[in-house]
């Protein structure tokens, strides 16, 4: 009896607002308790499950770390020559041995790796940006402009890249910048073509119509709506482009147009090692192994990324 009295007392003490329905209730019921999964976190979730692609990513991370910190562990700097210690086989002091001028190859491989990776990344990013813009404009506007751009690309693709690579190198001299520019000149046409094809498919979709109805300018539609929708293709082509740029840089070193000594790159090291491989095979094998490893890692990474992005290949 007493008990009920107290309860009634409490209820009577409550303000009238306490008997109103809780305005927040429906929102609490629908609150999302797990983190949001947007497009890229979904891709990352799939990517993480792909063990092969993750291996690629880990190898890339390791190689980057070695390029940043590796030279610090070397007994001498990458350009320190010592003719008394020339062509030494790998040992406890010189982990990768020394070259014909007695320079420590461990230091040279990782310093060269910095150059190769920087050239690879910039040489892949620049032409991709350019190709995306050209392809986007060409695909969106269509008509005469598209025809002209595509014919120009046809013609440029028929000119062996060697001509303009040599042209740029002769004008700007040898160094990182001319190499990056020369390689960038050769890489944008493929990206432009595939982006153009995709934009042509996307531009007739409703969201573009909506944007146009709301008065967006063509450039804004291309940059804000069409290109973000191509981001999957762009990222994949970027990650698959990096190894091919590293390869091209090595190819330039091979024909004697690459990075000049004492600075070095993986391609140059493999090329120099290739000249003495009969007597000192390790000078060829070590840089070769590193080049193959980095190409492999980037290819595995890009492949895995493509599989995570492509809904048709999902199970």
């Amino acid at each position: 009896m007493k008990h009920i009295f107290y309860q009634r007392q409490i209820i009577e003490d409550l303000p009238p607002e306490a008997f109103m329905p809780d305005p927040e209730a429906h929102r609490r019921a629908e609150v999302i308790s797990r983190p949001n999964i947007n497009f890229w976190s979904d891709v990352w979730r799939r990517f993480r499950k792909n063990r092969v692609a993750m291996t690629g990513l880990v190898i890339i991370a390791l190689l980057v770390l070695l390029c940043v910190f590796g030279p610090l562990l070397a007994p001498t700097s990458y350009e320190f020559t010592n003719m008394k210690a020339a062509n030494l086989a790998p040992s406890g002091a010189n982990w990768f041995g020394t070259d014909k001028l007695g320079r420590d190859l461990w230091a040279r491989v990782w310093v060269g790796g910095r150059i190769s990776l920087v050239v690879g990344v910039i040489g892949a990013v620049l032409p991709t940006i350019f190709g995306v813009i050209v392809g986007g404009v060409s695909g969106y506007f269509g008509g005469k402009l598209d025809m002209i751009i595509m014919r120009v690309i046809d013609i440029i693709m028929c000119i062996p890249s060697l001509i303009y690579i040599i042209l740029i190198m002769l004008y700007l001299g040898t160094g990182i910048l001319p190499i990056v520019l020369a390689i960038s000149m050769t890489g944008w046409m493929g990206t432009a073509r595939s982006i153009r094809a995709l934009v042509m498919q996307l531009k007739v979709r409703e969201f573009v119509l909506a944007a146009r109805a709301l008065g967006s300018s063509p450039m804004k539609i291309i940059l804000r709506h069409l290109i973000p929708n191509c981001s999957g293709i762009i990222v994949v082509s970027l990650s698959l482009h990096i190894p091919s740029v590293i390869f091209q840089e090595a190819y330039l070193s091979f024909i004697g147009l690459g990075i000049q000594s004492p600075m070095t790159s993986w391609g140059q090291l493999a090329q120099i090692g290739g000249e003495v491989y009969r007597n000192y095979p390790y000078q060829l094998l070590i840089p070769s192994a590193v080049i193959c490893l980095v190409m492999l890692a980037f290819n595995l990474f890009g492949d895995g990324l493509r599989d995570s992005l492509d809904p048709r290949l999902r199970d």
Partner: protein
Amino acid sequence: MLKYVVKRFFISLLTLFILATVVFFLLHSLPGDPISSNNGILPKELMNKLRAHYGLDQPVWKQYIQYFANMFRGELGYSLKHANRTVASVIRESFPVSASLGLRGLALGYPIGVLLGVIAARRRGKPADYICIIIGILAISVPSFILARILQWIFSVKLGWLPVAQWKGFKYTILPVFCMAFGMMNGRSMRAYMLEVVSQDYIKTAKAKGVPERRRVWRHMFRNAMLPMVTGLGPLVAGALTGTFVIETIFSIPGLGKQYVDAVKGLDYTLAMGLTTFFAAFLIFANFMVDLAYGLVDPRVRIE
């Protein structure tokens, strides 16, 4: 069909002409000329005489008109670096070598690549699939100059089974052809096309009406998956036939690729121009043939 062929032919000619023009001015805008590498070796008057002999003292636009007038008469001129050799004779001599190397590489590598793709797609997710993919990724990950050197080291230096270099008989062709072929043993695109085809309705129909597995794979899936592969074949064939500089240099094979790099680096205008035009004509022709072949193999895209 005939109208299409004629139209394509003229567009190709026009493309080739524009291309040759662009390359002509690109080459002539490089600093120096083919004679100037003799600076200090030859007396000044002799160098000027040489320039006059080859017409290099004329303004560039005059040289341009002269060059194209000659080209329309079928004359590609004399090489500026090799004394008394015509560009045509250099092509006649080096092209068969490059083409034979390229064709062998293609004939060995391409079918293997396609086959690996088919196997991978059929055994999707099984060990065979992974092995095929790994071979494919290795094929594009190992640069040809590294593969060539390592093969030379193993088979020529260590084991002594095969000659290190040169081009004098079947034994000499094994290593370069394998290097060439290895880059094409990439079955990943074939695998992707196969997987695309597998989920099509006509494959289900074939299965439902009791077509045996083997026949389903080769008659129904393989044929349809090969269609998009045909598109990439044009540039591939053109590239294989016109030679690769790296392999030709490492194995000292006297092919077109090597001649080309030497010509561009040495500013041998006429030889570089002639070879570029030859490459481009080849590529354009190969793409043209592929477009025609596409109409033949795929009835859906018969050209009007």
